């Protein structure tokens, strides 16, 4: 069986500096792979390269057998919904100007899957799935707590019906009392939807709690 995500010899450079230096790993469907390491070791650069938000300098990123690094931006757009990010900053990852409901609906509109009444029903379903009160859908991001914003960000990612979530420090910006709630939500969603997770964090405890396998990065390389 081919793995969902197969990364081989990935290299990411910023000018002369090499952030990711030949990283290889795999994520199977429904599996959680933790990626840990100190700040600046290249975890987030790896995530950006996997999502093709940054073009890697060398190496391969195969998603479900499809080589992403070779695809043009236009061809890539058809694949993008299948792997979605969740970012660290709960406020920064939502537009400050638009209501939560509209932002969760945006993937449906962008991907041409919006219709009435199915669209609004799907948004309501997504809000319910991440444990947000429907009333909160009418709010702007700055009217929500950090935990609620992060749930909205997860709902937006799920709107694309992904098979893999790239979770880049999804709970590090949250108050410790809220972290468990979001982590349990992620576990619950994985059970229900069979999602694969690439879980990036510098918090060993959180990673152990969630992951099937843990990789450690240091200075751009995977050391274990």
């Amino acid at each position, binding site marked *: 069986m081919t793995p969902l995500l197969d990364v081989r010899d990935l290299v990411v450079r910023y000018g002369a500096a090499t952030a990711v230096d030949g990283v290889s790993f795999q994520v199977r469907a429904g599996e959680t792979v933790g990626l840990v390491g100190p700040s600046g070791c290249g975890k987030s650069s790896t995530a950006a390269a996997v999502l093709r938000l940054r073009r890697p300098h060398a190496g391969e990123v195969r998603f479900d057998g499809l080589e992403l690094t070779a695809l043009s931006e236009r061809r890539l757009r058809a694949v993008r919904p299948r792997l979605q*990010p969740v970012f660290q900053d709960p406020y*920064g*990852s939502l537009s400050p100007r638009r209501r939560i409901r509209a932002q969760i609906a945006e993937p449906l509109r962008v*991907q041409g899957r919006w219709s009435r009444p199915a669209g609004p029903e799907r948004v309501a379903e997504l809000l319910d799935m991440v444990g947000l009160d429907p009333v909160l859908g009418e709010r702007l991001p*700055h009217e929500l707590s950090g935990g609620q914003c992060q749930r909205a960000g997860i709902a937006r990612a799920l709107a694309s019906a992904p098979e893999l979530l790239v979770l880049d420090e999804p709970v590090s*910006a949250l*108050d410790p009392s809220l972290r468990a709630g979001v982590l349990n939500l992620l576990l619950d969603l994985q059970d229900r939807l069979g999602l694969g997770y690439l879980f990036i964090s510098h918090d060993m405890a959180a990673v152990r709690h969630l992951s099937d396998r843990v990789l450690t990065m240091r200075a751009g390389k995977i050391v274990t």
Partner: protein
Amino acid sequence: MRATLARAAGLVAVLTAAGLLPWLSGKDPALSLLRARSAEQEPTPEALAAVRADLGLDAGPLGLLGQWAGGLLRGDLGISWVSGTDVLPSVTAGLRVSLSLMGAALAVALLVGASLAAPVLVRGRGTAGTVAAVLAAVPEFLLALGLLIVAGVGLGWFPTSGWAGPRHLVLPALALGVPAGALLGRLVADALPSVLEERWVELWRGAGVGRVQVAAAAVRRVLPPLVPQFGMVVVGLTGGAVAVETVFAIPGLGRTALGAAKSQDLPLLQGTVLALLGFGLLVGAVCAAVRRRLLGPALRDAGLTLPAARPVRVPPAVPLALGAVLVVVIGWGLLREPFAVDTALRLSAPSAEHPLGTDALGRDVLARLGHGAASTVGTATAVCLLGYLIALAIGFLPNLASGLADIANAVPPVVAGILVAAATGPGTGAAALAVALVSWPPLASHAAALAQEVRASGFLMAQRAMGAGPLWILGRHVLPSVAAPVARHAVLRLPGIALALASLGFLGLGAQPPSPEWGLLLDESADYVERAPVAALAPSVALALLAALAVSLSGTPARGHTVPPRRRTTRATV
């Protein structure tokens, strides 16, 4: 280095425009030159052809440009079309006069600036104050006229026109130097309080370093990042010099350039504009050198930035009150008839029938003030809109924007006005075009900064990740985040643009009689100031109110927010 290249490119672009003026204007300069040289000669085709041949106009636009550029390399600026004499001596003579004037003005400016910044330095807090802010916004021509009328004509302390000795220098230097000094003082005074709150100050004081040494160090800390802005102030002096030299009839470079533009003496215009821009570029280069000297070679451009300045916080009531006064006067004037001539009532004092008196043709001053404001505000709005659209279009191309902005920044509005008026003939449209051409850079840099901020934010990453195309991202997210704040910024610049238009009107480069444009109104009424002081005072006060409005608007909190308020805490607590 890039800035130097951009300035050189700007100089070439402006000079090419100047060199192509006869071709750009689309009119035949032969006719106007024939008139200028001998009024009684009939404009027969033979006479016009003779003038054309004499000027070498038959060579075509590119030929003319080539001839001029070739002469320039040999140090030959050509021959004046009107007087028939060499251009170079006129330019050097004018330059000598203008340099003395600007030198004196710079001395005044440094004194004013130092006296504004000193109290803040001693107290360690506060600002340069509202008076400084208003002085910095008052256009030079208004101050020049005020000084001329009060200290020159009224009190008779100083000569009011000509150029014959140090006493002639006093009033023009004040008119040119005080606004520049107020601006310098404000820049320093606004930057000082946050510098004095930096931790090293506390440390030095705790270690027993004397107050004088701390103050000196704070000044040294403030100056380097401000030096480029000082350069801009000095470049602005070249524009102000045109107005001041005109008011005081000083035979300087600015007045020569203005005269050349009005009489279509293009070789002289090219020579004077070259000298004005060359001076501006030299100042820019000197400032860059001073900055390098102050910072040392090790520090890169962005290496030493100042903490954010906290400008004067003006309560919103102030601009509201100023605006209300202007609106009442303008509204009242709009209800009256501005063009009705009544020669029996020439230059009458204020009365119940004419609340602000009448002008030299017996027209109601209040009516003209109101109608003039309507057309000025209309024009200024159009200019603002044009600048806004340019800014939005260019703001998304940061590299192009910075190069073009350097060019636009090196040209004061008055010099742009002279060039445009020479190409199209003076008029409201020409003035509007000139101001629009040089007023967009602050808006464009604001738009560029906002667009950059939005593009870097996490939610745009999410947009790309969900498969949104560039057009969707631009139209749905970037443009809405940029358009609204830049529009607010553009509205705030409206009074300043109206003042620039009034400056051009005052110099005869903008609206033409009988239009009641404010600058023109002031120019016309200034001749009769002794007989009808109110007629001259009314537009002056209106312009001063406009300047105060410009300043108080820029101080209101609205400008501080570049993006909608958003929690920036990395650690959410709720």
